[in-house]
């Protein structure tokens, strides 16, 4: 077993048995499980909340058939009937949140009812639309009766033209929430693990344990062993999320939930998605980890570490925002470009796969570019690392560093 494997084994073991690793894994699993169940819990809670609503009806179109009204809205409203004189008092009750709203119906021309719904919370338009629809139905029914049409004529008048919607590919509403969450997990994992590589290198240097290490193994073996060791630890964490998530899902089968118009559809996650998640995590991690390692090897004091790691974190953050932007138009040219550029591609391409049908050649191209970039940046990082690990004192200026790297061969 050569130096590389020894470093890898030790790094993997000490990382996966460390307290922070275990705690972080458990916290994330709790978050994932919580997110699976939370929407249905919220839905259940709000479904039982019937709102108090007042009816002031001068026309009788609704108040003549109170039972019908109450049945129609049995799940959402508690009806109270009031008169016009109570309006001021009732409006006061809307302001102090003791009632949801007032449906005031007055008669207009030719008996055409004019309704006004007074409320503080117009955003709940699902219910408001239902009220409007119900009023319309009652009015149409009243008109039909007045016209004294035959049953056949009534049916013809009330028939609606057929209108079906067929969704090709994936719907935005269906996938947005899920993609957002998975994209966040991917982004945060790459950021966390990438920067931990820099942290590890910086620690070994400021601690001087680096002196023991580089007099025992070759620097390249050290770099590879640490990077891959940490990567495997990250992968282990990922797999435990997936297993825990799938396990909970199989056991408890939480319902799909809705948040406004958006649905959180867990069944959208199939095996292929998980495979892509793992692939892009690994590729993204190795891409950033090698750069982080190169940067981290230049500092010798722990205080200097943020100076070199912040630019990289900024780059990752920018890629995150770019991906957020492209989520609404995943087939646009910006989305396609950034799903190939190696800095942003792990996150952007993965998100595109979730929200749309990506042609296979694009996926393969993205993966190929990432692998090639890892090779190039990895080679460069190794050159810097070889020189950087022995540099103590103040951080070298860029031109000094370039000279040192050139002269090292």
């Amino acid at each position, binding site marked *: 077993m050569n130096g590389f494997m020894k470093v890898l084994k030790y790094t993997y*073991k000490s990382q996966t048995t*460390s307290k922070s690793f275990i705690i972080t894994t458990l916290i994330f699993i709790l978050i994932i499980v919580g997110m699976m169940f939370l929407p249905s819990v919220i839905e259940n809670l709000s479904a039982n909340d019937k709102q108090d609503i007042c009816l002031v009806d001068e026309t009788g179109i609704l108040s003549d058939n109170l039972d019908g009204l109450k049945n129609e809205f049995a799940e959402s409203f508690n009806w109270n009937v009031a008169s016009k004189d109570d309006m001021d008092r009732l409006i006061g009750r809307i302001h102090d949140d003791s009632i949801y709203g007032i449906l005031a119906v007055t008669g207009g021309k030719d008996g055409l009812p004019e309704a006004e719904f007074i409320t503080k919370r117009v955003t709940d338009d699902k219910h408001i639309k239902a009220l409007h629809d119900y009023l319309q139905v009652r009015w149409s029914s009243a008109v039909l009766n007045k016209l004294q049409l035959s049953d056949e004529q009534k049916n013809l008048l009330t028939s609606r033209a057929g209108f079906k919607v067929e969704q090709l590919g994936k719907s935005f509403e269906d996938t947005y929430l899920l993609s957002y969450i998975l994209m966040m997990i991917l982004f945060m994992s790459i950021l966390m693990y990438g920067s931990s590589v820099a942290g590890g290198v910086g620690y070994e240097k400021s601690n001087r*344990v680096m*002196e*023991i290490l580089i*007099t*025992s*193994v070759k620097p390249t073996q050290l770099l590879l062993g640490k990077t891959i060791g940490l990567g495997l630890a990250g992968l282990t964490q990922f797999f435990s999320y997936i297993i825990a998530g799938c396990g909970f899902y199989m056991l408890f089968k939480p319902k799909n939930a809705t948040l406004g118009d958006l649905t959180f559809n867990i069944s959208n996650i199939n095996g292929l998605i998980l495979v892509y998640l793992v692939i892009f995590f690994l590729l993204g991690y190795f891409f950033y980890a090698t750069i982080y390692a190169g940067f981290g090897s230049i500092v010798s004091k722990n205080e200097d570490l943020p100076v070199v790691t912040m630019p990289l974190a900024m780059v990752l953050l920018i890629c995150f925002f770019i991906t957020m932007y492209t989520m609404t138009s995943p087939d646009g040219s910006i989305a396609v470009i950034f799903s190939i550029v190696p800095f942003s591609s792990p996150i952007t391409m993965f998100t595109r796969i979730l929200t749309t049908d990506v042609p296979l050649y694009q996926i393969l191209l993205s993966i190929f570019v990432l692998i090639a970039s890892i090779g190039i940046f990895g080679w460069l990082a190794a050159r810097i690392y070889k020189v950087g690990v022995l540099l103590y004192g103040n951080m070298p200026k860029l031109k000094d560093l370039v000279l040192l790297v050139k002269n090292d061969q």
Partner: protein
Amino acid sequence: MGLVVNGLSKSFNGNVVVKNLSFSCEEGKVFGLLGRNGSGKTTTLRMIMGIIKRDSGEVAWNGEKLSRQFERIGYLPEERGIYIKEKVSEQLIYFATLKGLSQKKAKSAVQYWLKKFNIEEYYDRKVETLSKGNQQKIQLIVSILHDPEIVLFDEPFSGLDPVNMEILKEVINELKVNGKCIVLSSHLMDFVEKYCEDVLLLKNGETIVSGKLSKIKGDYNRKNLIIRTGEDIRAVLDKKGIFVSEALENQYTAKVKDEQEAQGLLQQLVADDVSILRYELTEPTLHEIFIEKAGD
């Protein structure tokens, strides 16, 4: 053949830190690298290890160029270099396997050395829970547990209490008897005098004296003379130009150039019929030589 260091030099930002340093150390010998703080000892040791790139010079072990990843060399850095938050046994075994020991051998070596230094009970503890002295012991074990042929110690006694110092002295002696080549830097002059045959004294990167300790003492141009007489001989001493550092009730502590000067005084006193109660001529101590040569 042993360790041969030839012409090592290093400058940082135009400052010469080590200048043309050469020495050799054979198997079974302890070589003392002496000098004040900042004189270049640590830089020298780091250059031998390959941690700092030397500007010029060669380092050879048994005739071959010494490689940085040479497995049979042990190094004790001046500052602590171990994983603070990890267990003692795990990282010791790790470092040992990196230096070529098998997992099994590493484990038994760790147990042997922990016992030797009286810290067996810390086998499963995290290093951060140990005191500074015990951490130093761990660091020492890291440098020798893989049974290296060469050992470089940078101030090995720092942080050790007298009991632990004795343990370390025994360990170093044991290594010496087992034929290891040991190079150490230290301020403990009495230790160096006792165990080192060869020394090198550095001052601002330059070699002031180097070679066999006995020869250095012999070449030193002053010997210590303690003489106690029955009467006051101040006048005689002054006439002979002998420097007296202390005079108390007819006991004089003086510095003479060599044996002849001391003999000359003795003959004079005998001729003058002065009774001589004590006459002691000793070699200079390393401590004295150090202070005079390395001081400003």
